[in-house]
């Protein structure tokens, strides 16, 4: 049967190349579609399209400033469907969020009138408008989750004071995750409701803790994101303290978990007082907090070094068991054998671990653990101008950081940048282990494991062409009920030969054991 070609020329229509390549690649996945292109209608591009069997009179008449969408498919219906999809994707980029036929309120007041009983507003507007919109929502009696960033500290203080005066939550700014009354907001996982209340200044921190709680059979009463800056001196822990008071008074919350980078000593003092006043058992995970900075004397307060320990300590407190942190879920000897078996496949000069992360807090946790077990680690978390390819030795990349997301989608949504990074590591003769995270849940890519698989394969092939084996270690931050399905994602990574660990912390430890040929084990044993 002859293939059918359909094309559409949009005059003086512009899109950047990444958007066009992504669009063409989405259309190519449709059933029956053999080839798809989205390119400017230059003469040179018309030749490329003709060589790919994409030739119609419309394409022939396109001008350099016109956008050409073209699809070749097994039959006319499939070609037409492909073209319709291309148009839909293009339109979606222009009217992001628009839903034909659905009611789209233009103001918060109209939204509240049309949805009486609503008690929370999720606000994502540019930083300069954020304060006005969030203040409006608070005055309407709504809790606020403020996704926007670039909100000045003064504005954040004013908003949080306004919220506290009205006994409302002001989550954010720059808050990407919350679980309120069992409802996941923004980037969050599907976890059961339960007795653990979480206050978190970190999005993926909250995700990791809530997922490990779910895996252990516990649930979350509320997961309150407070924004990454709340525990700074400038904001003085306003919303953290308010959230702790709220969870302290919430009868459904039996155990508290607090997640953040270490706050300033002054703010930390207020937080510890608030935890004591809550009169509920609590776990504090201030990633990187020195043991000497931890107050003693509060028997209901446990400190956790990792997100996993925070979740498991909360489980222990809830069930009344003593909590003893363990580096691995399996026996340490078993893991040692696994690591030695993997290390045996490496060549002598393969000694580096490269962490390529989508989750910022998971990257931060990896940086801390790897530094402790394997020695100095380069990272864009330490130096924002660190350029890809410049890092030597161990390195951890947070690809969700601003320097990588300007002009690109976040790596939790689109794996393009991660694939590029993965492939690059395959060309570096010093790399032993590539470490990464796969974050599931609402808001994340529909198949994150499948999305980065070509990067894993490219890295592996590049290394094998040069006579090296590359080891991939990962963890999945997600639950069986997440839209992507934990088991399906795990199967994809298993089939790709990725060593999967039950948590980010364990994955980092395994990577360190392999790359250091077990030397990290001595440090691990000493620490435990």
């Amino acid at each position: 049967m002859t293939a059918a070609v359909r094309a559409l020329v949009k005059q003086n229509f512009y899109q950047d190349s990444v958007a066009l390549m992504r669009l063409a690649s989405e259309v190519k996945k449709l059933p029956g579609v053999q080839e798809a292109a989205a390119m400017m209608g230059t003469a040179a591009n018309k030749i490329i399209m003709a060589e790919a069997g994409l030739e119609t009179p419309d394409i022939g008449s396109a001008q350099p400033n016109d956008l050409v969408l073209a699809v070749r498919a097994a039959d006319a219906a499939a070609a037409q469907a492909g073209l319709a999809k291309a148009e839909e994707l293009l339109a979606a980029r222009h009217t992001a969020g628009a839903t034909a036929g659905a009611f789209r309120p233009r103001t918060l007041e109209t939204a509240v009138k049309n949805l009486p009983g609503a008690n929370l507003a999720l606000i994502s507007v540019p930083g300069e408008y954020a304060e006005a919109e969030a203040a409006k929502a608070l005055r309407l009696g709504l809790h606020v989750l403020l996704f926007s960033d670039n909100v000045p500290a003064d504005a954040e203080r004013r908003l949080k004071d306004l919220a506290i005066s009205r006994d409302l939550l002001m989550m954010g700014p720059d808050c990407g995750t919350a679980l309120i009354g069992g409802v996941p907001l923004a980037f969050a996982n599907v976890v059961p409701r339960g007795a653990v209340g979480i206050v978190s200044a970190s999005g993926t921190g909250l995700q990791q803790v809530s997922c490990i709680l779910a895996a252990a059979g516990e649930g979350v009463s509320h997961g309150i994101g407070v924004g990454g800056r709340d525990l700074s001196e400038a904001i003085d822990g306003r919303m953290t303290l308010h959230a702790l008071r709220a969870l302290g008074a919430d009868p459904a919350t039996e155990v508290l978990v607090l997640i953040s980078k270490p706050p300033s000593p002054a703010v930390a003092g207020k937080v510890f007082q608030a935890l004591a006043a809550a009169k509920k058992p609590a776990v504090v995970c201030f990633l990187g907090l020195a043991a000497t900075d931890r107050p003693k004397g509060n028997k209901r307060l446990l400190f956790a070094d990792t997100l996993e320990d925070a979740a498991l300590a909360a489980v222990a407190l809830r069930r009344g068991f003593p909590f003893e942190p363990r580096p691995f879920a399996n026996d340490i000897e078993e893991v040692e054998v696994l690591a030695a078996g993997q290390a045996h496949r490496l060549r002598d000069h393969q000694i580096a671990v490269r962490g390529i992360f989508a989750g910022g807090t998971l990257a931060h946790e990896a940086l801390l653990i790897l530094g402790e077990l394997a020695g100095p680690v380069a990272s864009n978390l330490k130096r924002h101008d660190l350029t890809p390819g410049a890092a030597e030795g161990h390195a951890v990349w947070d690809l969700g950081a601003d320097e990588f997301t300007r002009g690109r989608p976040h790596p939790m949504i689109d794996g393009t940048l991660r694939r590029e990074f993965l492939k690059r590591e395959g060309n570096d003769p010093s790399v032993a282990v590539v470490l990464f995270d796969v974050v599931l849940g609402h808001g994340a890519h529909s198949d994150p494991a499948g999305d980065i698989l070509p990067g894993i394969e490219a890295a592996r092939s590049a290394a094998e062409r040069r006579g090296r084996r590359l080891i991939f270690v990962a963890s999945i931050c997600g639950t069986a009920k997440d839209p992507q399905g934990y088991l399906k994602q795990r199967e994809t990574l298993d089939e790709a030969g990725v060593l999967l660990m039950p948590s980010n912390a364990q994955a980092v430890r395994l990577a360190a054991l392999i790359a250091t040929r077990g030397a990290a084990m001595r440090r691990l044993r000493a620490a435990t």
Partner: protein
Amino acid sequence: MTLHFTAVTASRPALHILRNAGGHAGEIHSAYRRTINLRFPGDHLVCLHGGRDLVAPFGIALGRDFDSPAFERIAPGVRVVPADGTLRIPEAAVEVAIGRAAVWEPEARPRPLGSDAAARHAEILEAVLLQHDNPDGLAGLVDGADATPLLRRARPCAERLQQALARRDISGVLAAAEPLMGLGPGLTPSGDDFLAGLMGTALLAEPPAGPLLRAVGPQLLRLAETRTTLLSRAFLAHALEGVLAPPLDALAATMLDGADRPALARAARAACTLGHTSGMDTVTGMVFALRALAQAAP
């Protein structure tokens, strides 16, 4: 209510275009989430964008992102008025103050580059491009990769271009450049970025042949009128004046100043991060120009 922005950095060429507009209104050429391209009489473009670092030689950086409700009203064709150190977009009630912006001047100055130095620089830039290993765009040209239709189409032209440049064969340069124009997806197709890198480097690094190469400029731009996008043509026009986008200009300056290998590699890595493939495609063009210079008869 008018929304006010203050530009933090403005390129000298952008200010020159605004001054030459003499108060005549321009229009929005294209608008993205972080970039708005403005077209002024004579098809001169000015690129208004977020962030602090300029991304185009005709750029103005606002220091922060500007995706706001007001900017939803900014669409191709909307009027832009330059006046008294400001840019006004009346239909969107947006005003950008430019008067206090730091002015970016291109750093790279024409300076002859010997064939040994050209060969050495080409090798350093190649190594950086290979490390990036981006399958899209034209960086694969330096490694003999032919994995994509784009590379297969571009390779013979790029090689012919290198040979013609080495021979200083102007008609050969024109003939080989033409099929590269407009080659690739997006608003600045890879082939054009490659040409900008190649021509910019050749002009900056071989002053004795400068007049000869400059003679190609108007002819290349005439070809570009019908073969590529307006934005790409604007980049090419600046490259033909020896002015590249700031990170690429910094790379060219580092190279012509005879900096050591680590400094050059650092500058190349920074240049490669521009856009999805634009920086890498331009650096690839620079490699081909350097290879031509390395093999050119003295």
